[in-house]
């Protein structure tokens, strides 16, 4: 392990880790902001096509990330509808594709968490003088353990994903210090694997694992802290 790390430029390791964290964290934050209100609407709303929408969301959990990456690539490429934004091969493009990948996961788990909050509690919040917004907030509060799980699941999907960030990010590092621009821990592993630097690849993988572990430990703390 130590020799594996020894091959790695510290600046490279830190910048790759930072890009991974930055892209996934922003993507999951956006996913969560989208998912919380939508999960309330889907769980408690009665509208035509609700079943279809739920099926689509659940299918979204299995979206192949390379396909999402390809679609985002085509959308952001110069000839694509959003080509003018010049976002292709930037961290922003990676955030877009990871948001698309993480949202169905966060949303789907949030919906089941929110649905499990009983109607009696919603009525109690309403009877105590709450507005519909108050009732929604109360429901999110009651569903908080499930929602933390949803966010962690989404984070796991985003940070371990390689296909779409490779396609839309371009796996770019800048010389001379090997500073990552769009290279994440996962895409760095593919580079090392292709070069035959298996030990370095494993070392990067270990860093990734530790990150996921830390994020989950933090999430677990938030979840259990709320129990008091």
């Amino acid at each position, binding site marked *: 392990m130590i020799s594996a790390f020894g091959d790695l430029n510290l600046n490279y390791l830190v910048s790759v880790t930072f890009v991974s964290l930055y892209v996934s964290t922003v993507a999951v934050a956006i996913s969560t902001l989208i998912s919380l209100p939508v999960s309330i609407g889907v769980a408690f709303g009665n509208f035509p096509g609700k079943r279809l929408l739920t099926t689509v969301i659940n299918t979204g959990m299995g979206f192949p990330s390379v396909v999402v990456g390809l679609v985002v690539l085509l959308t952001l490429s110069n000839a694509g509808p959003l080509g003018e934004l010049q976002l292709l091969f930037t961290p922003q493009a990676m955030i877009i594709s990871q948001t698309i990948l993480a949202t169905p996961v966060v949303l789907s788990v949030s919906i089941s968490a929110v649905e499990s909050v009983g109607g009696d509690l919603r009525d109690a*919040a309403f*009877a*105590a003088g709450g507005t519909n917004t108050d009732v929604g907030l109360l429901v999110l509060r*009651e569903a908080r353990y499930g929602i933390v799980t949803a966010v962690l699941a989404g984070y796991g999907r985003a940070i371990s994903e390689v296909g779409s960030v490779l396609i839309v990010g371009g796996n770019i590092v800048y010389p001379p210090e090997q500073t990552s621009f769009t290279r994440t821990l996962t895409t760095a592993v593919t580079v090392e694997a292709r070069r035959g630097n298996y030990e370095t690849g494993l070392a990067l993988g270990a860093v990734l694992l530790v990150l996921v572990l830390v994020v989950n430990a933090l999430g677990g703390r938030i979840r259990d802290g709320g129990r008091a």
Partner: protein
Amino acid sequence: MSHKENTTGRLRLVADGVSHGFDGDSVLEDVSLTVDPGDVLAIVGPSGTGKTTLLRLLALFSRPDDGRVALAEGESVDTVSTELTPDHVADARTNGHGDVGARTNGGGGDGDARDAWSLSDDERLRLRRRIGLVAQDRSLFSASVGYNAAYGLGVRRSRAARLRSSLRRTVGRWSPPAAALSALETVGMAEMVDKHADSLSSGEAQRVGVARALAVDPDVLLLDEPTSNLDPRNTAVIEDAMREAKARGIGVALATHDMDQARRVADKTAVVLGGTCIEYGPTERVFESPRDDRARQFVAGELVY
């Protein structure tokens, strides 16, 4: 009977010819009754007779299919005479309908009452916040007793104040406001303020539910079979809380199938059977000399279905 010293400024809750159904099935038909300030009204009837639906309509949860629910200032006609005649109901009806759209404040100042559902959402929210409803089943939030008791106060405060409260709770430096504590005091739960609601017995949970409704000092307190699953001691505490509310000028409506409880606490009793109010008047009169034959059988404990 009714003590009226503390009822100044309190609103009375009027249901007038209320009918309601679900999916085409009629649950309530033409129910008219009034919850007066400082009065306890028992709504008695067998299970499944529409008591819960009636209370939810009274709490302005949903709009009745027909008839109106209103909150109004001033003495109601039927408390003054203590006897309800069809004329009074008719009076109330013409008053209400003739008044629709004429005033902008919720409820009139001279005893008339505007249909709560003809008001704007904001005005109706203001009226709704004068009414407390305690459901039959345990419905405490997964939080401390204090949080539960303070919930109604919280939603009435500004966004900034609420944000401060939740920050304080996060760092463990929050304590419930005085009104919540005194409501908990009323039901003998003040010492359990820091306990988690999930750890309470059903009796304790019901008492906290009553405290949550009382903390905001409502004008009307609606209780849906609050003691149906409780032991005598918890029942006594809840009945005491009803008397305390009454003494503060709050109008209490109590749905129950416990005839003895109705006799113990209620000034007026309405007997609801099959979705219609077949008997309505002073409790003593309803129990001693009911006019309706099925009401007589019901209050005597016979089965009437």
